[in-house]
């Protein structure tokens, strides 16, 4: 479960990236975080994962405060950043071992998880190669594997579908569903509305740091005219603020 209460974040150039954000994402839910470019999606994710510090407000993950128990909170989370170009000079296996050690995963557990994840993503045969030699999609997959190696209760993904082929994209959506069905939380940002519509239990829309809407897809549809396409709704939501 993720709880954000009155969270503010301002960057040095006094731009309000997150403006009084309040959100509750319960266990067992896939939560989509929508918004145009520069809306504050990535900043919010960085605040929840401890990459950035909030100016004020509280962020709790499974009841633990990120300020007070940052290490415990970080252990609860598996994070997939928006760019998969990291640790390019490590081999796939070395990267997974690095992540597993950072998250204190036992030898047995990591073997089982890596084996399972590698099979699902078709990565078994490339684990000995350097990430540098991977395609964009393969890099994305190894990062996802690294995020899941400790079987986190909360899985956070920033624009995860970018660069994935249809099969892997389908696989990822399945895994997100599985994760939520196991009473864990999935929080992901996207601007691909179609993905949100198909996968999410609930969505929130953010623009210029402010939360514009939070609720189920049905509620969202009710909120606007019933037959309007989601895309139109999304545009209406974001444009009305301008």
């Amino acid at each position: 479960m993720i709880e954000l209460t009155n969270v503010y974040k301002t960057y040095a150039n006094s731009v309000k990236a997150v403006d009084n954000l309040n959100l509750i994402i319960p266990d067992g839910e896939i939560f989509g975080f929508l918004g145009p470019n520069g809306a504050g999606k990535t900043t919010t994710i960085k605040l929840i994962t401890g990459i950035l510090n909030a100016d004020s407000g509280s962020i709790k993950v499974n009841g633990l405060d990120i300020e007070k128990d940052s290490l415990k909170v970080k252990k609860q989370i598996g994070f997939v950043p928006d760019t998969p170009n990291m640790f390019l000079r490590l081999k796939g296996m070395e990267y997974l071992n690095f992540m597993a050690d950072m998250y204190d995963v036992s030898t047995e557990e990591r073997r089982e998880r890596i084996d399972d994840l590698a099979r699902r993503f078709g990565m078994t045969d490339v684990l000995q190669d350097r990430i540098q030699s991977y395609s964009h999609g393969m890099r994305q997959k190894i990062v996802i594997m690294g995020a899941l190696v400790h079987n986190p209760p909360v899985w956070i993904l920033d624009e995860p579908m970018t660069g994935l082929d249809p099969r892997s994209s389908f696989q990822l959506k399945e895994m997100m569903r599985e994760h939520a069905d196991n009473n864990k939380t999935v929080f992901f940002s996207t601007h691909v509305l179609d993905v949100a519509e198909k996968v999410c239990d609930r969505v929130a829309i953010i623009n210029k740091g402010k939360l514009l809407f939070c609720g189920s897809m049905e509620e969202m549809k009710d909120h606007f005219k019933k037959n309007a396409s989601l895309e139109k709704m999304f545009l209406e939501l974001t444009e009305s603020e301008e």
Partner: protein
Amino acid sequence: MKNKTLLLTKTLIRNGEGLNLKGSNTFAKISVLVAFAVVIPMIMFGIGSFVVFLMGVLRPIGQEGLIISMGLSLNSAIIFIFGLIYIISTYYFSSDVEYLLPLPLKPGQIVGAKFLVVTLYEYMTTAVFFLLFWVTYGVMTGSGVLYYLYGLIIFLLLPITPLALASVLIMVIMRFTNLSRYKDTVKVIGGLLGVFLGIGVNLIVQRFSTNMSQEEILALLRKGENSLLELSNSIFPTIKWGAKAMVSSGDWSGFLSFLIYIGFSLLVFLAVLLMGEWIYLRSVMGMSETGSRRHKTGSNYLEKEAVRGSVVGTYLKTELKLLIRTPIYFINCVIINFLWPIFLFLPMIMQNPAEKTDMMKGITGFMADPEASGFILIGAFIFAVFMGCMNATTSTSISREGGELFIKKYIPVSYQKQLTAKVLSGFVLGLAAIIIAVFLAVLVFKLPVWTGLLILLTAWLPIMSTCISGLLIDLYNPKLDWDSEQKAVKQNVNVLYNMIAGVVPAGLTLALIPVSSNFVLTAVLLTAAHGLLCALLMKCLLSLGVRQFRKLEN
């Protein structure tokens, strides 16, 4: 329509990887200027006195013209060797290649622009060297204005022939081999070649100007045929005309040679453009793909590889792997630790036999003298401070993270542990330098083994303190916004700041010279002083440093 080759050249230079001090503060600028103000005059003095010395030898026999010939030959050889490195990285390994290929440019225009950019680099590399030969000869022979004018134009055109040869060589190699698969290895070899060339030139100049008699030099010049001079004269034919133009600048034959030199150089440049048009595109295709042999993963691969390790241990191992596998980090942070001890011993080993025996006797006698043990220990500590400061590992440790710094923020590892692992990465490498130096000292200079062991037991302290100070400096002034790894390390002023910070441990060490005759007292005081400094710095790192790490956002 503007000339696209020149337009592209300008863009490449603006986008280039020069010493960019625009964003740095005044202190950074001043420190870099001071460093240059010290280093360049030192090199100039060395080469200048070498030329003056040669003039003294050659003038009485009327062969002073050889100096110009020699200057141009050596310059061309240096341009050629550096050219190989510059060309392979500019033509092929530069990230702009994949952006340039889809643009409506002819291959000849890309090669032309890149050739000019490399020429510019070469001016910067060889200007001081050429200037000394040119001006010293001019002043000592009282040459006229024409000599200086010819000299300037000859200098500007000098890189063309060696660079053309290097370009063709590299383009052909890249066309027919798959060297791009070993991009990192090629970069490392290139970097090492540069380092060794630097040492080589330094040693030759040193040896010539200090150890050789007039007769020996004349004999060496008379032998001729196989010398570097003859070799580079025959490889770069323009040198002959250039040298003739400068030496006979006063008469018509000089002017004629000058024209031939210019004409030939321009022809060579055109030939490179044609060659580029013909071969460059074919050799550069597919460069952006990093080759990798796919390994078949065996059934027991997971059992063997997926094994739990400690957090700090794995973090440290990963830091070291990245340092070793990234060519620019490998050269500046890893290999430097192994080269410096050898650098320092080499001039002593390279002395001519007669002087060497005397000197060796002196040194081995000194090493074995129990009275000198305290002094030797102080020397070892100074060497350790020096090695710790020269090592860029921790003073660029945060900077090297660049855009990936956020990863270190979301992993559930305390900043204390992360900073400790980062200090250890520099420490492990610095320790290697001490071990090599002690090993060489025991082997070559007969340093008593027990003194060597004592050095190993204590002299790690200055390595540790300089590693911590480096990391602290980088935490407060990290250079996170870079687009090439080169900028994170080579153009990082924090390395210089850490050298300046090295004044503290060096001062602490030198302050003990007065008590150095008492070995036990020296050892105890050195260990206590450096131990205290280490403890203080570590406390700072784990409190202030951690706070600063938490604050860093990119």
